[in-house]
């Protein structure tokens, strides 16, 4: 079954039809989606800046991580719920463009990378007991994380601009 067929099938299901009937759902979900990415990107950026020692230096690295990483995961949960809702309401528009799939891949990548790296930082701090910050070592992760989130945001916008070429 091709992607276009899957998307059309999804669009014909009862839940999708129900969502499609209410014009206010997509704009509302998109606004909540923006709030979600705001929490994620701001938290991730703050942690990244602290990792490389460029900002948020009034607190130790672990304190910044403990304060902000939970908000990143909460934002991601909101993004997942609203994202599924938006995809279910407009399956063809979302699923036919490769930009959508590139975005999903990058989200999975940055989420796994973040989980792994934060875990490493916490473990390292636990055994040594010293301040966990090691700016030079953290730079590759901070740069990768930032670029991935920027790419995810750009892809999000460009789904709308590119789906017309694939429908």
């Amino acid at each position: 079954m091709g992607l276009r067929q899957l998307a059309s099938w999804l669009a014909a299901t009862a839940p999708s039809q129900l969502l499609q009937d209410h014009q206010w759902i997509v704009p509302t979900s998109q606004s909540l989606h923006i709030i979600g990415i705001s929490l994620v990107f701001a938290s991730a950026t703050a942690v990244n800046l602290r990792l490389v020692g460029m900002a948020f230096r009034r607190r130790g690295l672990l304190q910044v991580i403990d304060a902000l990483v939970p908000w990143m995961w909460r934002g991601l949960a909101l993004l997942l719920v609203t994202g599924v809702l938006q995809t279910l309401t407009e399956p063809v528009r979302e699923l036919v463009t490769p930009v959508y799939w590139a975005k999903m891949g990058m989200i999975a990548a940055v989420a796994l990378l973040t989980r792994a790296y934060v875990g490493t930082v916490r473990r390292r701090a636990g055994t040594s007991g010293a301040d966990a910050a090691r700016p030079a070592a953290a730079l590759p992760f901070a740069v990768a994380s930032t670029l991935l989130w920027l790419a995810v945001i750009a892809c999000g916008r460009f789904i709308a601009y590119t789906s017309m070429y694939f429908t």
Partner: protein
Amino acid sequence: MDLPAFWHQLHEWPLAAAMRGDTPGTEWLFPIVETLHVTALTLFFGSIALVDLRLLGLAQREAGVSDVARDTLPLTWAAWCVAALMGALMFVSKADSYAANTPFRLKFLCMVFAALNMLVFQFGAYRQVGRWEHGEPPAAARWAGALSLALWTAVVCFGRWTGFTT
């Protein structure tokens, strides 16, 4: 000031034509500027939300309010400036349309109220922040945080709505 004449003048700018994609080769300029606007605004809104949540006592409670504010706000304002600059570029593409657009106008009205809210807090309860920043936030701080969150959320929603109606 004759606004319609001013919008017409803006409309004739080469920059405006480029933003509209009228000039050959500029079709992707608006989408790129818009994406930068969205990126900057997410950084702005996320960071101010984290400060507001601190004022409400809902996030980063182990840190003092002034530490959170001083750490976060430079990032917040830098992001706002980029968002505003990108917004200005989008505005000139169809100045008369945007100026007449209701959600767009409401967006700016909310920003004015958000600014007033910030000034009231800054010169009010925040001046004594050293006295209350580690304990339960006073009512003034909680109101400032709640209003800020509500107003900037409205700005985000009106902004999205503008995109649907222009």
